[in-house]
């Protein structure tokens, strides 16, 4: 069976790429700390030595549109292009090109449908910054095949939080059952509290620091019951009008399955709190030396 070597759940901040490349004299004061934290986080994936990446993200009205909107979609293509013209314009990110892993995509689709998720699929998908951002942060050499999975956190009506957790559990079952010798890592990106296009956007912190503090505890502790008893589709409006992206973190908690994170870090930035979590479901699969740090949230 395949080996699930690492699960990474992280925010995706489209300005990291540009910020991390600024000369020191032009960089904002938080840049050095941000780069340091991202490089430390990158090590949590590197040491797992994955062969293939399952990438969970959400299309931001790039390829998926309101005339034909899937709730959950799996890419099944031999290759994927990445990033869109209006992302390049706004964020200064380059276009990317990915290899796909069609065998795992096909398995994910067949098994997902048979296990209760009528997954949509795409044979030609240009992935957006929800998937390219973590490549820039944790796998900048972009050398591994991917299986993209998109969730709808954007265009209501949305699936409920319970459904995201359940999909995460199902993805875990599917990877664990995949008849393959490959080492699989899952990387999912979402948001903590976030406001876009509303009165609370682009403040000195995320729009709801209290929610963020609670959210990172739920994730760090693998507290699925705690998060499900406190988070609903309605409640997610209060911390910020784009906070439904937190459901992608909940999906990743479903994959990790009640486990405490092995690495947990965060960084309070303008506009949003950054958060970086990694789980190692089977530490015996890791041959590299232990991490020198478990992140600021786990000392």
């Amino acid at each position, binding site marked *: 069976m395949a080996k699930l070597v690492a699960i990474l759940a992280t925010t995706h901040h489209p300005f990291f790429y540009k910020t991390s490349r600024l000369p020191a004299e032009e960089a904002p004061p938080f840049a050095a700390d941000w780069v340091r934290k991202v490089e430390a986080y990158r090590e949590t994936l590197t040491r797992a030595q994955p062969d293939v990446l399952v990438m969970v993200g959400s299309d931001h*009205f790039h390829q998926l*549109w*309101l005339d034909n909107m899937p709730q959950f979609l799996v890419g099944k293509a031999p290759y994927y292009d990445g990033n869109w013209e*209006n992302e390049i314009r706004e964020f200064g990110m380059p276009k990317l090109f990915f290899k796909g892993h069609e065998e795992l995509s096909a398995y994910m689709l067949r098994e997902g449908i048979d296990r209760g998720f009528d997954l949509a699929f795409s044979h030609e998908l240009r992935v957006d910054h929800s998937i390219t951002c973590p490549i820039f942060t944790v796998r900048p050499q972009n050398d591994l095949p991917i299986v993209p999975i998109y969730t709808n956190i954007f265009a209501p009506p949305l699936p409920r939080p319970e459904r995201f957790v359940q999909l995460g559990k199902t993805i875990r079952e599917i990877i664990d059952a995949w008849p393959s010798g490959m080492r699989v890592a899952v990387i999912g990106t979402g948001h903590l509290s976030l406001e876009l*296009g*509303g*009165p609370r*956007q682009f*403040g000195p912190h995320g729009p709801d620091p209290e929610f963020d503090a609670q959210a990172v505890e739920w994730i760090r502790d693998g507290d699925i019951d705690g998060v499900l008893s406190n988070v609903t589709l309605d409640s997610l409006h209060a911390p910020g*009008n784009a906070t439904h992206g937190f459901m992608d973190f909940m999906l990743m908690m479903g994959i990790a399955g009640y486990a405490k994170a092995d690495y947990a870090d965060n960084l309070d930035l303008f506009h949003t709190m950054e958060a970086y979590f990694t789980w190692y479901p089977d530490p015996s699969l890791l041959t590299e030396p232990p991490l020198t740090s478990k992140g600021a949230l786990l000392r």
Partner: protein
Amino acid sequence: MSKYLVNKFLFTVDRDTALTERYREDPAGTVAWWEAEEANKILNCIDAERSTWLSFTEEERQALATHDHVALFGMGAHPFLTLTLWIAMFERDWDEPLGMQLDYAAKLAHVEQPYPDISC
């Protein structure tokens, strides 16, 4: 209300650089042209398969034709679409980083929760 059509306008204009510039320079003319020629195109379909029923309300037409992002927010246009297009059109007019985004937010400061429903 035709929130869907407002969103379709924002979506199709934002992703086309020439159209973004045209909308910046001539909002009323662009909205009139778009409603007449583009509004009923089903994306990814040929012209013969156009829809036959989509049009703006006067309120929507006016909000788009005057670059009124506060009115668009109030009528439940998708805030991500509006913001992204506004950044493309107007960020260049500000010297300070995030100056445009903070001004955009300040103009919405009177808005209280719950925000307008964005489902179509």
